């Protein structure tokens, strides 16, 4: 088996990997028959013969990929090219905080303690794609922020695929541990540089200890041949705040499995998303918030704009356990359909076992307001720009919660590009 030749059998996490492989062999790829995958088919991906381990190392020049960085600000960078760490493009640190590599963390004894406590602890052990990642992942970002620390600048995690392989399967694995009262901002992006097929099956585990603050931004604006299955697991302790923003504009097929487990009181979890799709793109947001302790909050706000033959899926599940009294859980999913062939499937789910809670979910599907459009046109704004303006306004609730101004500006540009307009100003 190729796998055995490519990994270290003596590795401390070898047992974890073997268990994961066994699970994946039993379950295989999820099919549409499973309720969680009702609206997303992986058939087209399974037909492609992906190579799991790239044969050779590929180098990239910074100037070629500069535009994919938030280059306006200084950031820590962890960059991977075809799944292999590129020290040339990266900027890591061990100064007070650890911003480095999974491969290092898994092998070096100084990290053993943390790996033992956190690695593969919150990630599902029976969800087949997660276990596939657990079995095969070799590399990823390792971020450890000790108590009361905050890195000086945001962290960017970038995955490039060069297309030197005909089709590539990447399985990055990130571990982010934020200790008590610490704070971190992370921006993650997957980028394919050619039109060869790539599939990324990523797993990220985030642990937010007491009073920790984590901002995680996912930018998904990949090439039309790139597919992404992103599995993110978040474990929160008392009074921690975790915000995950997902901006989905590109890619062929994107599936975001976002799981929040609230293991403490007074926790705040926020999941926001803006999805703007065209052509035959498909995005599936599958969120889970499990309220396991009292007095917590969760907020979800997903906006989607769908044109051409794109399809969008939103499946949001909120579970409130019996002891999780005084929970406030809110979920919102608004969608605009622009073309006849676009479709949207929304399935907001509430499973509530506690009585003293406030939970709500709202879902709308509609069009741009004709009156508003007319109003703008009557004031000399061309139709295309007027439409774009209204769509901006539609997505603005989510954008306004982005806490890095340069990132916000970048996303605005991406939106403008996606909508094919130039408004001449930033919102």
């Amino acid at each position, binding site marked *: 088996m190729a796998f055995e030749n490519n990994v270290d059998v003596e590795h401390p996490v070898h047992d974890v990997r073997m268990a994961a492989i066994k699970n994946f062999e039993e379950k295989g790829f999820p099919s549409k028959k499973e309720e969680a995958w009702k609206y997303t088919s992986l058939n087209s991906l399974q037909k492609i013969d992906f190579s799991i381990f790239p044969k050779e190392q590929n180098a990239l020049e910074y100037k070629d990929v500069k535009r994919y960085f938030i280059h306006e600000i200084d950031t820590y960078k962890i960059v991977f090219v075809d799944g292999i760490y590129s020290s040339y493009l990266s900027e890591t640190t061990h100064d007070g905080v650890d911003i480095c590599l999974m491969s290092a963390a898994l092998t070096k004894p100084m990290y053993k303690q943390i790996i033992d406590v956190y690695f593969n602890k919150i990630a599902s052990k029976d969800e087949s794609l997660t276990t596939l990642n657990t079995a095969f992942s070799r590399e990823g970002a390792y971020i450890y922020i000790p108590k009361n620390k905050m890195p000086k600048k945001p962290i960017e995690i970038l995955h490039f695929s060069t297309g030197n392989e005909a089709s590539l399967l990447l399985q990055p694995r990130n571990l982010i541990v934020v200790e008590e009262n610490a704070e971190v901002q992370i921006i993650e992006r997957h980028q394919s540089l050619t039109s060869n097929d790539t599939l990324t099956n990523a797993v990220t585990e985030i642990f937010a200890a007491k009073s920790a603050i984590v901002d995680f931004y996912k930018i998904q604006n990949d090439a039309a041949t790139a597919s992404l299955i992103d599995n993110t697991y978040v474990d929160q302790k008392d009074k921690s705040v975790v915000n995950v923003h997902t901006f989905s504009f590109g890619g062929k097929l994107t599936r975001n499995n976002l799981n929040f487990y609230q293991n403490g009181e007074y926790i705040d979890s926020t999941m926001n998303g803006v999805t703007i799709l065209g052509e035959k793109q498909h995005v599936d947001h599958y969120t889970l918030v499990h309220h396991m302790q009292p007095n917590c909050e969760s907020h979800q706000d997903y906006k989607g704009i769908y044109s051409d033959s794109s399809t969008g899926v939103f499946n949001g599940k909120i579970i409130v356990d019996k002891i999780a009294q005084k929970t406030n859980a809110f979920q919102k999913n608004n969608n605009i359909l622009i073309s006849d062939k676009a479709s949207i499937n929304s399935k907001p*789910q509430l499973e509530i076992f506690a009585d003293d809670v406030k939970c709500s979910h709202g879902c709308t599907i509609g069009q741009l307001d004709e009156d508003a459009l007319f109003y703008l046109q009557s004031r000399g704004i061309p139709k295309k720009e007027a439409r774009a303006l209204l769509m901006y306004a539609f997505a603005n609730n989510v954008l306004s919660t982005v806490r890095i101004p340069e990132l916000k500006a970048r996303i605005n540009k991406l939106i403008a590009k996606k909508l094919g307009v130039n408004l001449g100003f930033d919102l």
Partner: protein
Amino acid sequence: MSKFLTHFLFTYYIEYMAYTEEELKKELETKEYEYGFYTDIESDTFPVGLNEEIVIAISKKKEEPEWMTQWRLEAFRIWESMEEPTWANVHYEKPDFQKISYYSAPKSADPNKTLDDVDPDLLEMYRKLGISVDEQKKLQNVAVDIVVDSVSVATTFKKTLAEKGIIFMPISEAIKEHPELVKKYIGSVVPQKDNFYAALNSAVFTDGSFCYIPKGVRCPMELSTYFRINQAGTGQFERTLLIADEDSYVSYLEGCTAPSRDENQLHAAVVELIALDGAEIKYSTVQNWFPGNSEGKGGVFNFVTKRAICEKNAKVSWTQVETGSAVTWKYPSCILKGDNSIGEFYSIAVTNNYQQADTGTKMIHLGKNTKSTIISKGISAGKSQNSYRGLVQINSRADGARNFSQCDSLLMGNECGAHTFPYIEAKNKTAMIEHEATTSKIGEDQIFYCNQRGIDTEKAIALIVNGFSKEVLNKLPMEFAVEAQKLLEISLEGSVG
């Protein structure tokens, strides 16, 4: 107000609340099913079990034509190849279909009998239930087709309806008297292979109602059928077929109560509504089958398939008040096939003790400018689980389709659960869909406000629940609204913890 008095009132309030919580909870737990009695009527019962012979025997017993027997056999074969669905959010011991007797008829039943000839035992049972056939005949202007176990024993107002050309009769008679209508429409909305329970029902249904409203006729009265389960160990498989021809109108009521039983009873009904161009059907249900006792023992399994098809400009409105049954599995649906058709679903589902309900609706928009409204109110108390499961589907040709859904859940006590599983699928850019769901409990401040004004807690809860469900109660016909309101109160008495 003096400090002392304020303090006194406050303490009193606290104590009062504490009293209510415990006392009422206890009272609720021990509250037995009000209509839990059992009338002994000699029954003509088939041996238990299900096979082709039984299906043929049922058909024979009903003196059905050959095509019907074949239709049933076809359904039976489909059923044999199907598996019981497990996707619903309910847990129960699967019924053993070979331990059920599929036919039971009160011996005294005779279709030619008048009311006076009806078994006095039966009449006594109706009296206990508060259904006085004569009284309804006179006062409420309701034609009643009473079903006890599986055979209709009394049909009233037939004449008045006949004058208008309305056909309202047990389906077994309709198969004989109007085979062309039955043949054309039966299984056209809910085909035999639709689902496990629909297939079972198609194979073994013994009775139910058939109704046909001719073109342009407005049915002058509310049509109503009261279903009862009476015979121990008999499943009841009702089949209702309602056809509203072009531009006609009918309001149909269905209400159920069942006597207390220890073993679980199965109820797998199929209701098919056909609203032709411009027709309007209003279908109201009050369901109060025996829910099991306070330990969750016994109770009826209610696995119902209800579906309507709406042609051009037609309108179908489902209203249901679900308070009974141990396990409910019910999704009254509308297929909005014709342009400008309208589907409505108003529901109150109340669960208490160990009841489980998985109910909701499906609105399938196929025609242009179709509209649907869903208002669902779930109230869970005790250790019950209450789920809303709904589908709103806008197909690619359904231009200008509009949907509004609202599902609210009220939780009483911390051992119950409320769940929502809405599926929203839009394939048309002109679709307008709004979906809203909330879950909350009765506010302590609301109860306090009522208490302050001299309304005791029990009454306050009834008041709040009534207010919560008002949107749906309003949709019920008058005589049902009163009964439903009463039912809500009975099912929820003192369930606030």
